[in-house]
């Protein structure tokens, strides 16, 4: 296996591990729910993505055939991770009633979808 590819794989693994660590730290350290959500959804997804690409390159080179599994996993992950983050955020908006006042305006005629009180419908 060429040195260059080895280096690439190593770099990807390191980057992946780094982002996973950052995500985990974020989940543990950030002060409130909305901010903590960033950790496991954004940083971790990125970290796992990097690891998967490393795996893809490794097995493609090692076996000589293109490894498609990781691509599929990445695809599914990138499809589902934002959705779960979105749903978590919505649940939080719904349940943390005392924090509702802090919600910024949507900048649209209708309010937040979760709470939608149709402020601007004029009805």
């Amino acid at each position: 296996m060429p040195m260059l590819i080895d280096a690439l794989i190593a770099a990807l693994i390191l980057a992946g591990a780094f982002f996973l660590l950052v995500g985990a730290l974020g989940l543990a350290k950030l002060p409130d729910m909305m901010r903590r959500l960033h950790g496991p959804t954004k940083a971790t997804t990125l970290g796992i993505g990097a690891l998967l690409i490393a795996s893809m390159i490794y097995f493609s080179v090692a076996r000589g055939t293109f490894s498609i599994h990781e691509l599929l996993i990445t695809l599914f992950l990138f499809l589902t991770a934002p959705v779960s983050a979105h749903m978590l955020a919505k649940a939080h908006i719904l349940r943390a009633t005392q924090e509702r006042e802090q919600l910024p305006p949507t900048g649209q005629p209708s309010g937040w979808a979760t709470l939608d009180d149709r402020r601007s419908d004029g009805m």
Partner: protein
Amino acid sequence: MTLLLVVLIPFMGALLPPLVIRSGRNTCAVATGGVTLLALALLMSHAPAVFSGEVPKAGVDWVPAMGLSLSVFADGLGFFFAAMILVIGLLVIVYARFYLSREDPMGRFFAYLLLFQGSMVGVVLSDNVILLLVFWEMTSLTSFLLIGFWTKRADARQGARMALVITGGGGLALIAGLLLLAQAAGSYQLTEILSRGEMVRASPLYLPALLLVLAGAFTKSAQFPFHFWLPHAMAAPTPVSAYLHSATMVKAGVFLLARLWPVLAGTEAWFLIIAPAGLVTMLIGAAIALFRNDLKGLLAYSTVSHLGLMTMLLGLGTPMAAVAAVFHVINHATFKAALFMSAGIVDHEAGTRDIRRLGGLMVLMPVTGTLALLAAASMAGVPLFNGFLSKEMMLEEAAHTSYLGLDLLFPVLATVAAVFSVAYSARFAIGTFLGPVRGDYPHHPHDPPLGMWLPVAVLVVPVIAIGLFPGPVAGPLVALTAAAVIGGPLPDYHLALWHGITPALVMSLVAFAGAAALILAFRRADALRARLPRIDAKAMFEASTGMFVVGCRRSLVALHDGALARYMGVTVATLIAVGGYGFWSATHGAGTRPPLPVTATALTAFLALVLASGGVLAFHGERLTALILTGVVGVVVALAFLQFSAPDLALTQISVDVVTTILMLLALNLLPKATPREQSLAVRWRDGTVAGLAGLGVAGLAYAVMTRNGTSISEYYLTQSKPGGGGTNVVNVILVDFRGYDTFAEIIVLGIAALAIYALLDPALKGAAVRRIKAMLPRTESRDAHPLLLVVATRVLLPLSLVVGAYIFLRGHNEPGGGFIAGLVVAIALIMQYIASGYGWAAERMKVDAQSMIGAGVAIAGLTGIAAFAFGRPFLTSTFGYLHSPVVGTFELASAMAFDLGVFLTVVGVMLLSLAQLSRVAHRVDPSPESREPMDVQLERTVPRTAGGES
């Protein structure tokens, strides 16, 4: 083989009437009659052989290991009874065609009748005692259906129930009796048993076997003290009464005594038990019959009496008496069926069966009247009719019988019974047909259509023919049948009208004189009877069954109180006790196999498992937390499967876990968020102790097993998977091939479980439950129940998941996967649509309903199994070949794949059905508008601003 068909044809033909009833009632009756006629013709094709002394046999093995074979034989007795059942059956079918009204479901009636006919023919032709028992029970069941045919009538239902309990209970005793008999004789084949009479009578099992067989025979043939069910069975339609309760079914007991006569008869016990039972039944039946005002009631008790007569004759144990019994079976079947049908005609045309409201019908319905009078004369034993001949023989036998030194007991009581018998016959004839014409019949009586009186006429022909020329007409048949009953040389007898002045003739004359006196003094006798205390058998029966029901319910409630903790406690405690006994009463120790090294991964997984389990214990009050922690257990188990090279199991475990969690979440939605507080500390300690001991036991067991190198069947599976099942995925090959039977049963169980969930949740859809759930749940619903992001993502994922499902399914035979996992994956994908887009939206687009999917799955799996029969292989034998496809690669096309498809469909159906029912409950509790658009909250751009938004 045609003999076996005689038995099977009525069963197969029973499908016909419900199908052809749409083409009209005549077609239906013709079809039913045709079935019976076919069976009769096949039976008659054996007549020459039977009359020449041969015994035709036919049969195939059924469960040879159990001694059960589907074998029949037709000796004289079986042949005679089968012929009688089919001939009278044919007449009854014709009669029933005109008897049943337009409102009665005739197709169902004839179907039941044919089922009964088949069972009855089965009873009399069976060569195997177990087969006989099967048919015997079937006659009880079909009789239940026929008695309760008019389901709307309370007396019909009660009568049917009573008959089923009594005859069914007797049937249970008979099972034991015949098994003991088979044990004593060393064979389950009747033909064998019949030739081993000496051996059976010498066996210590003889007496218990005899008593149990008698319990079966006496209940079936309504012998005292079990006689009371028969009159209550008269709530059945009259064709049924004529067929089952006079001519055939009630004679099954008599048949059984005759059948086993060569084996069981001739001992002290036989004579001492059966003869007096028959005598008492004959007497009591006749006495009660006299005072019955209901025509059918009178005939029913008369039947009881005549059955007693036959039983007594068989009980006497002499060959001569056996001949008389057989002769009377023939005679009784003819005149009694004719009388029942006549009573039905009277009921039909005059509108009542009450003797006190009838009389003088001879003038209004001369044909029926003539036929009924002839039959009644035979029942009374008037000379020149067949009833006279067999009754003479009975009296002759009774005259020579001495019971325990009492020389007069039998002659006197038999004569008294004959007095009553003549008297009730006279009352039937005079009260109904003779006397002055009345003006107050409920209907205007007139003769019925030809189809209704013709069967009666056909039955009356032998009544007279045998009466006049007994020797030529009935002689050969009686000789044939009696020879089969006796199983030896026939006694010297003559079927003739005139035997000279015999004791029997004197007794007959006494009977006629006594009866004349009794009829003249009927009012006084009736008044006397009214003063006697009455025993209401029905009330006693109802009271005792009521007590049984209450007792069962009490003991059941004590054992089965609905608390899961209790069942679990009892089950687990029992396991601990049994396991502990085994543990302490044997030597044990650790095995010799060295444990695997502890890796960091394994340790982490182990700790996660321990923490999650501990967490469930600590947080079990909060249901959501507990559910999530349980999920951890599932994941760790899946990892363990992966570690030990069982990717298939890991995949299954993960999918099952996901599906379970989703369904549990949906269910939790309808439950309180926390469990109620537990009971006292002591109870918790007790439960904890039981659980802890069980855990220790299981751990010890696992340790003991895992430290040993036991031999197991897995080696066989691993080597045979490819050559035997054509797949390299051993797990899948085991599931769909090696142990396909198990899987087939399991998917059926799964389907039933889903239907049970459906049914159990049904009450939650109703008013009170809905209100209760609603009150329990604090509701903070999101305004957009179907968020855009989730909706879009799940819809994008659906085709992807379906492809994954198809892929997993297709490769399942060789690589990890298979129908079960694919089913779970597809189910998850579909469930996600329901969750994201709402039940209404998804259900509308789901074109196949879950129930049909379950049914189709089970059917496909079953048909795949059956298909193997077509190639002469046993059920579920699989075959395979290979198919090359560009994308998936070479994959197997095994017949097991169709089976796997069945599994797949069942799994998907089960999941969707459970989910749909949960969703319906949720929908009832909190009806939210179904979404038509991709999301609930309107997007800014889709709302036309001018349409009235900003005013």
